[in-house]
């Protein structure tokens, strides 16, 4: 049957739908940043930026940028009333110490055990860079991944075992993709929802792994 992939905006809206009021959330660089645009107005969700901000607000209007007030992607942001600043060791204590509720990250690959690969392609000659990726992956109470399900060549990015260097082991709880939302459980992958017209069997074929209902 025919089905349509979700747009990036629709994926961001899907992730936002699962973020409850009162949650402390870190949105990773890239696609996850867009989730903030889809949080309902009036819902109090406190955004964490690992460079030292809780209560991060949206981008400032043009001309109001303050380059002492930037997010982890180094883009100018604003501070919500009640927002605070703190140093790096405190900021990463918030993750590692299990205080952050949800972290949403992009990924190259996620294994069916929840291993995450998102920091390095491992190409020879590439200069590796990790930033806060490994701290974020294992730090939050729940790590969610947001990515296209398939590579441009059609290979599944949800895999039996990561071929790229891993960022963290057994750390991903949910995978939000353009075709389906999956949960990583001790019994394997479980389908939460899929786009209209895509059956669980078809999805399992695309992924090449069993997907439970």
């Amino acid at each position, binding site marked *: 049957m025919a089905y349509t992939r979700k747009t990036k905006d629709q994926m961001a809206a899907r992730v936002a739908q699962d973020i409850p009021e009162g949650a402390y959330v870190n949105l990773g660089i890239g696609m996850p940043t867009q989730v903030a645009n889809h949080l309902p107005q009036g819902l109090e969700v406190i955004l964490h930026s690992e460079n030292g901000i809780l209560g991060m607000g949206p981008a400032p209007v043009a001309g109001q940028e303050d380059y002492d*007030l*930037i997010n982890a992607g180094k883009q100018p942001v604003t501070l919500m009333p009640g927002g605070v*600043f703190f140093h*790096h060791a405190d900021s990463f204590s918030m993750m590692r110490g299990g205080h952050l509720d949800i972290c949403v990250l992009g990924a190259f690959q996620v294994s069916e055990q929840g291993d995450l690969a998102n920091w390095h392609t491992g190409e020879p000659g590439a*200069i590796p*860079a990790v930033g806060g990726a*490994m701290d974020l992956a294992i730090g939050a109470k729940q790590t969610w991944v947001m990515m296209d399900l398939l590579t441009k060549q059609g290979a599944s990015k949800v895999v039996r075992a990561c071929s790229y260097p891993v960022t963290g082991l057994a750390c991903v709880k949910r995978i939000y993709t353009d075709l389906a939302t999956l949960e990583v459980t001790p019994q394997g992958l479980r389908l939460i929802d899929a786009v209209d017209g895509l059956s669980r069997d078809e999805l399992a074929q695309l992924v090449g792994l069993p997907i439970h209902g």
Partner: protein
Amino acid sequence: MINKIAPSIAHALQGLTNDQTLLIGGFGTAGIPDELIDGLIAVVQERQVQGLTVVNNNAGNGEAGLAALLKTGCVRKVICSFPRQADSYVFDGLYRSGKVELELVPQGNLAERIRAAGAGIGAFFTPTGFGTELAKHSDGSPKETREINGRMYVLEHPIHADIALIKAERGDRWGNLTYRKAARNFGPVMATAAKCTIASVHEVVELGSLDPESIVTPGIFVSHVVQVPRVATQGGGFKKEA
């Protein structure tokens, strides 16, 4: 009378010698002690200092600041979390030609290793990086790991430094410091971990005029305070980061 206000950056850097380890604050455009780095470059060139290890979140952008320091050839090793940026070509060139060694550290482990040094911790077990390439020493041998209450951890050691260069907002002659917004980042942690911490401030204030409840770095961690003119921090150079 205690007076940590230094007459110049060069004066504050009198203790700089070959092979020292330097912590340099800043993340992105925020909190980079540009004036102190420029002052360091001048001293390095004048005294032909070599073999430095530099600890920063990044490895320099464009031609200025940390990139300019690397370009002098005085840096033997960079310890950082994110060296690769759209315009980190000075570091890239030195790294690829084997002139600079890189120790890549996850950002939170970097902050904690610096914190541990300042706090007198011998080493610590962290969950970050377990099972990854970064749980190995530079020679490829695995770092020590341990299971504690069912979770796996990697043993990491503190990063002690000879000199820290940080950017603060206000300071007094006892070395008490406040910061501005997200420019705080590594500053307060780095201040604790060096034998000599040099802080730039935009305002030197009278002793007693900083609110004691709001002082972020107590002066005990600070050796020298250097006043620099206030310049609006600028964007650019960070737009295409992965």
